[in-house]
């Protein structure tokens, strides 16, 4: 097997005495300390407006504006542009969810509605936010593009019951998505 021989660096006596290097190291850390204290840490830029170091002072300053497109926050259910609730209660998300956070109770669709063809819609759709691990598998597996991870990251339930989000909440948080899913249109 091929190998690369790594040459150990030869240390001079001065290096091996350790004292000079120690003082150099202390100098570096002290520079960081001093720059932090005057609020001019390296790489600070526009990262934090005030205060010490390269840190956002969380509740006052927020990361929100810098969240990337692909940020995985709390999962939500979405409606289509036509106002149709996209979920057809196939329960794939429930089965794929590694944390078993999702619980779907299937129900039927009103026969007179425009999307009667889809036959099923969730009677209740619950996500336990204490179990959710924000992996995004539900979004990936959904054949109907009905469940999406939002950018919401501040989830503070007051008790365990409060942490379970029902269908109504999920649709309210999800809002409407662009793009029509036409396959359930009865005229197609």
């Amino acid at each position: 097997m091929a190998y690369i021989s790594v040459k150990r660096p030869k240390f001079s006596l001065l290096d091996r005495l350790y004292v000079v290097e120690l003082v150099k190291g202390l100098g570096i850390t002290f520079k960081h300390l001093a720059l932090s204290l005057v609020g001019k840490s390296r790489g600070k830029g526009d990262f934090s407006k005030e205060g010490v170091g390269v840190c956002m002072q969380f509740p006052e300053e927020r990361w929100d504006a810098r969240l990337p497109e692909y940020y995985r926050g709390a999962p939500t259910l979405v409606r289509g542009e036509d106002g149709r609730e996209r979920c057809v209660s196939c329960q794939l998300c429930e089965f794929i969810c590694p944390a078993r956070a999702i619980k779907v109770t299937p129900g039927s669709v009103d026969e007179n509605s425009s999307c009667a063809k889809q036959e099923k819609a969730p009677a209740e759709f619950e996500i336990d936010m204490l179990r959710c691990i924000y992996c995004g598998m539900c979004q990936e597996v959904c054949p109907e593009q009905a469940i999406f991870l939002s950018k919401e990251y501040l989830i503070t339930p007051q008790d365990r019951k409060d942490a379970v989000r029902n269908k109504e909440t999920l649709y309210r948080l999800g809002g409407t998505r662009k793009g029509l899913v036409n396959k359930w249109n009865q005229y197609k």
Partner: protein
Amino acid sequence: MTCICNWWNDLMSNPIWFYLIATILKLVLMFAVILAFVVLSVWIERRVAGWIQDRPGPNRAGLPLFLLERFGSKQKQPLKDVLHFFGIPETSWIAKLCTWLRFDREIPTFGLIQPCLDGGKLFLKQEFTPSYVRKAYFIVAPMLVLGPPMVAAAVIPFASSVETAYGTISMCVANLGIGPLWIFAVSGLSVYGLTLAGWSSNSKFPFLGGLRATAQLISYEVSMGLSVIPLLMMFGTLNLQEIVQFQADNGWTLLPLWGEGLSLQRWAMLAPLALSFLIFVTCVFAEANRTPFDMAECETDLVGGYHTEYSSMKFASFFMGEYAAMVIGSAIVVTLFLGGWSIGFGADAWVAAHCGPWWAVTAQFCMFLIKLLAFIFFFVWVRWTLPRFRWDQVMKLGWLVFLELAVANIFLAAAVMYFIQ
């Protein structure tokens, strides 16, 4: 009133009662200083660590003003009312400063009460004792870690002495003639705590941690004891109060700028003394189990080291013991090398002559605390600079470098004292 005065007079005129009361007062003061400094040094550690790593560290833990609402106050922002009361406009720099200091949201403590809150949290945590430990030793071990530093502190002088109407009070709890020896002997005892903790936990990693603590302490205690011998040769006494008095009169060990310190001999002595300082400080680091010598609890190879199995207040006593050892280590370095309570440049005698002995003692006490704080900062600074040594490197450094250096240093100091007069 007179009756109380007379009674007090009679009581204090009895030398035994006078000694007892003075000692208890000094004891309480010393104990309070150490405990306060333990808390303070935790705060310093976390803040300085933060600054060195470009972050603020614990800067909150204020008393939030929304608590007022809970207690029935209707006002949301009392700051506005206060400003209005004093007639300060809300756009003035005072108002801006108050806002910057978060007075409008909370009563700020700059994170100072964070260690106290952490202590409270540890106090309220579940005390979990594994079933397989040896109970008696398991319980005794934390006490053995916390106790010795407190006892060692007894001989450290925190100010000079004061003449009162009833007798002289020397401002250290026990004015022993064997100061440094007492400290070495007693602080060496704290390793029993670590070893017992490691052994009684009855599991692998704590045991290894305890073993490492023992080996490390023995190795470095030797060089530590040898490294102070040049100093003792110069001072000619083992009494710490006299040692500091000597430094106040003749220049600090490492700063001989006044009194007899200006002689050629003292300046030539600086070489062996600086070497002593280097060895001694390193050994204090090793003794206090601080990075870069925290082999006994290094997380990367030993989980938590000797306190892996401990929780709640037992863990807190280990934690406090460690920081108490650091405070006492700083105190002894300050006392031996940096002039102890001495203000320096002959100012001690001047203050005592012009402002009275009590002012002198107060100034000296403050000076001692300032020096102590500065050295604690140095402790912390080194911790966040150096990575941990490997175990064999630590042993090699102790036995093959420092021991030889310390012994050679004694001869060097003797030569300087003999040849340069």
